[in-house]
């Protein structure tokens, strides 16, 4: 580059700087309620964050004349989360949903700074006057999944690609294993932890490792469709997570646990608009339409589908509890006696594997 073109470039930069200064401060008057969303993954994960964003879109569709929404995706669970949440609050968002566990303490800190803003944190346990919590009973879906995969496996080994050894994930593994062993007492579950919610290469590696260990059905509690794709490649079955992932493996995809946040987001926003918002904990299940199962793969025999439908109806009616005793942990010790079911608190603190899971829970 010679001196002349360089001069031009600098001139261009100066021009841009002037334009920038002139264009400053174009804030538009807002009477609509601003609702913010913070996602841990990209909305293109086609899983957990994608599904939250579907909820946001539903909120826009139903209450679009009263609210505007904003989202920030791919927010790391560390020092950055607090800044993002703070920015949303500082820019006039009055209701902010933070959708990953790692956002708990950052959300709490920001909530203390903005007492007139309402915060909602998904899957955590800390609440305050303006910070509510919400989650779904994902384990209910896992029970139905367990019955289906128990009938579909030939090798009697189910591979489970898991994110973090937290109660939400552990209770899901246990719920599936309990249901699995009811229909197929010989089956066992092998778990690989990837220590991430969204890491497609790692998730695919984990799925392949499980397949190499003999698993012929892959279940996942991570957010990308990579495990489904790995199973499809090997001609095996898989169960999707958070979202209907059929298009990533039409042959492999047996079903998926689909999160439905839209109804909750609409409901909470309506409450805030009507002045009836309260800080509380919501833990909704299939009955509350916070999750459902994706359409079953035609490869699943009709009698298995019928059993799955019955189980779903029983869970909704309360006739069946996913953690009905007797339940034994890996060592054979009875953790839930016969005639009793695990309490919500026991499920929320679950830190043991039940019989039928191979491998140790990291402690």
């Amino acid at each position, binding site marked *: 580059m010679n001196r002349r073109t360089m001069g031009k470039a600098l001139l261009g930069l100066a021009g841009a700087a002037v334009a920038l200064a002139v*264009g400053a401060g174009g804030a538009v008057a807002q009477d609509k309620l601003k609702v913010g969303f913070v996602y841990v993954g990209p909305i293109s994960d086609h899983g957990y964050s994608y599904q939250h964003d579907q909820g946001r879109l539903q909120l826009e569709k139903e209450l679009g004349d009263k609210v505007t929404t904003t989202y*920030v995706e791919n*927010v790391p669970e560390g*020092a950055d989360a607090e800044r993002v949440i703070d*920015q949303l609050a500082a820019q006039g968002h009055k209701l902010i949903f933070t959708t990953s566990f790692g956002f708990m303490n950052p959300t709490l800190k920001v909530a203390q700074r903005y007492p007139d803003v309402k915060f909602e944190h998904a899957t955590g346990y800390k609440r305050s006057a303006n910070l509510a919590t919400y989650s779904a009973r994902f384990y209910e879906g896992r029970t139905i999944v367990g019955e289906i995969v128990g009938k579909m496996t030939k090798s009697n080994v189910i591979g489970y690609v898991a994110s973090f*050894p937290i109660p939400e994930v552990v209770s899901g593994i246990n719920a599936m294993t309990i249901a699995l062993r009811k229909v197929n007492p010989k089956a066992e579950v092998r778990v690989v932890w990837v220590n991430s919610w969204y890491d497609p290469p790692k998730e695919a590696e984990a799925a392949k490792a499980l397949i190499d260990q003999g698993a012929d059905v892959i279940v996942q509690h991570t957010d990308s469709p990579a495990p489904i794709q790995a199973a499809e490649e090997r001609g095996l079955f898989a169960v999707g997570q958070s979202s209907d992932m059929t298009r990533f493996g039409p042959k492999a995809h047996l079903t998926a646990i689909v999160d439905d946040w839209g109804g909750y987001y609409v409901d909470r926003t309506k409450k805030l608009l009507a002045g009836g918002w309260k800080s509380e904990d919501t833990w909704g299940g299939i009955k509350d339409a916070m999750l459902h199962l994706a359409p079953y793969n035609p490869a699943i025999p009709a009698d298995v589908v019928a059993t799955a439908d019955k189980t779903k109806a029983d869970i909704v009616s309360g006739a069946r509890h996913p953690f009905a005793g007797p339940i034994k942990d890996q060592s054979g010790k009875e953790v839930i006696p016969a005639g009793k079911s695990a309490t919500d608190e026991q499920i929320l*603190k679950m830190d043991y594997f039940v019989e039928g899971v191979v491998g140790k829970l990291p402690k």
Partner: protein
Amino acid sequence: MSLLRLEPRGQASRAMVYLTPVLAVALTLASGFLLFLALGFDPVKALHAFFIQPISTARGLGELIVKATPLVLIGVGLAIGFRANVWNIGAEGQLTLGAIVGGGIGLAFYGDGGWWVLPLMVLGGVAGGMLWAAIPAWLKLRFNASEILTSLMLTYVALLLLNYLINGPYRDPEGFAFPESRMFEPDATLPHLIQGTRVHLGSLFALLAVAGGWVLMSRTFIGFQIRVIGLTPAAAGYAGFNEKRIVWLTLLLSGGLAGLAGLGEVAGPIGQITPSISPGYGFTAIIVAFLGRLHPVGILLAGLLMALSFIGGEAAQIALGLPKAITGVFQGMLLFFLLACDVLIRYRVRLGARRVAA
């Protein structure tokens, strides 16, 4: 035979060496302008949302400093090593060890601490980073193992160690088995420097590191040795410089600073030990070091710029709904233009085949 070829210039212009980062930024802004235009956004508004709006408040400026702090701390240390041809790529692991050791001290004295806990944690953070960097130093000198590979691989060991601890001894006993430590007590938290922001003591450490790095490199005999070893190892050998000592020094220094950065994150803005302490600061700092021309003051500016590109990406997303990927695109363009400018100040582009020398 190619139509374009690069012909080395005898001597790169000194002015241009310092001007290219500025030029790269200008070109990035210009391309960003076109990019936003092509995406259908008002480019002026978008650039404003990206680069100006985030730092238009005291809080925003504070956030910029908070984000730049680990990048500058690590970048300064790495650059000193890079000058001596010691390629510490594993700052992310050393950062993690700093958080593990320093943060662990905070947890160990939970409930019965005092004013002395924080200084101990800071020392622990530095020591943790140094310890992790000492391994590649020893392997390099003892077995001639490339520190590029060993330090990088140790990063993953460090992350797994963190995962083990956070699911075991470090786990909050009242935390519903979630893999997070307790929140540190006030005695174990870095004090805020500016009220109403998150700027903490770590930022002061970063400034001290910049000053110290500058003094070391330009005003001391050791700095001279580092530069000579980096430029002409053979000459350094003839001069009797102790290369082993420089390997130890640069790795321990960069490791210690990375460890300090890690401690600064957990005892600063995060306030507890979590499974994800750093979104890759140890790696981004390598870019920062080169963007800053391996000069401490340059690194300070580069760290701030890189921090702005991170928080600007979020701000643009909030204000205009720009996709988050735009952050990566901006950082990529910046590096691309920097490297391209570097090529052009070192080489001349000639059209046609090489003329036969007379």
